[in-house]
């Protein structure tokens, strides 16, 4: 089994260790603002446990995925909203 996983974040290829959450892949892509707030402020993860919804991103076209709770899979396409 491969030790790393390759996926894309905003079109940029990222390699992360197997088992990493999508939040880690977004951070590894150098992104700290995962989304824009309703008034346009940059936001990133807060709670790390699926409560705050600040880390949500679009994954394979599915919106509002909490990136801190979903493991990376090979070939995933992650889109931030920042």
């Amino acid at each position, binding site marked *: 089994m491969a030790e790393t996983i390759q996926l894309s974040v905003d079109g940029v290829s990222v390699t*992360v*260790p197997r*088992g*990493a*959450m999508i*939040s*880690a*892949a977004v*951070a*590894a892509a150098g992104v*700290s*603002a*995962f989304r824009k*707030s*309703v*008034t346009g*402020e*940059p*936001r*990133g*993860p*807060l*709670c*790390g*446990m*699926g*409560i*705050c*919804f*600040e880390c*949500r991103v679009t994954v394979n076209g*599915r919106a*509002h*995925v909490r990136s*801190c*709770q*979903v*493991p*990376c899979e090979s070939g995933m396409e992650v889109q931030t909203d920042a």
Partner: protein
Amino acid sequence: MPESAYDVVIIGAGPAGLAAARSAAACGATVMLVDDNPQTGGQIWRGEPRLAVPSGASLVCGARVFAAPAPGRLWLETFDRDFELGYRRLILATGARERFLPFPGWTLPNVMGAGGFEALAKSGLPIRGKRVVVAGSGPLLLAVARYLRAHGAELRLIAEQASRAALVRFTLGLSRHPGKLWEAVQLRARLLGTRYLSACWPIAADGGARLESVTLYRAGRTWREPCDYLACGFGLVPNVELPALLGCRLGASGVAVDEYQQTSVAGIYAAGEVTGIGGLDLSLVEGEIAGFAAAGKPDSARPLFSARERHRRFAAALDRAFALREELKNLPQDDTLVCRCEDVAFERIRRRSGWRDAKLQTRCGMGPCQGRVCGAALEFLLGWKPDSVRPPVFPARIASLSGPRCPPR
């Protein structure tokens, strides 16, 4: 009864849920364990559970309950599907989350919870060489700091809002719990060389697009501490939303339970942090009791009552030592956002008469987190009690709301 029904369904596979699963399964009950994280262990054992899922028990990870359409039935959703679960007895081990307090700049990217930051680091966030300030309150700060140190972060300092006097009283009290004292000493020893400042707290996070420094306050003095991350949490609050949805009565510190961990709703039990913040040992023993009771063997639970009582006394001491100081109520300024989902500033919220009025007039607490973040903050800042809970208890997809039809797999 739905297609897939279990004697005992347990929501939450942290220490309490795993302990409950073990004792319920040992009594011969069919057990289903559910957790919204990808792995068992809860927040404290994240990914490295020290209790196994008992053989014979079923497990679904990455699933959260969003509705309870009728007694004995739950609707759940995962990343890409939805399903229904049936239960004869239910054990709620939904754990706790951090309490965040709003201060200027707390919404900047890279300002995170204390436990939140550790969780994200354990999920693969690269922290080696990153400058981190750990702040807030509670024993969790020390555990987080230890983890960060061990994994190569540059720990700048730990700011604990509680006074030194309160901490010393607490540490002395620990001698009645020798095991805990050892744990505390061990933690402190490993942290040697890191500043641990009592009666100190952040008053602002500064930066443009992301955090650049944090302004700390201590004894009349303020200063700026440059950092890449601020890991900041002010204690824990129980996750009572699902229990409330199910009609379980809430007490002052969490879900109210009887001596067998049964809630006010017959057949529904609660164990662990959701009944009141008490730590790992209390969660384990409560889970074990709930598991026996839910599986119809309450006599097996009785011998555990004295241990539970001991752990509860420890929890009460902890609660006193790390009580939040009044000055923290002055942290949010007029323009500080309190509701991060709807971007509602403190100035607009505090003029309202209560939680419901604030929701109706400002949309505070009406976003995707459903008040889980701002509700706990406003409970401390303004003394507001959370409003009633309605389904869906978590945001769910439209397709799921019409009623799932798939059995779990």
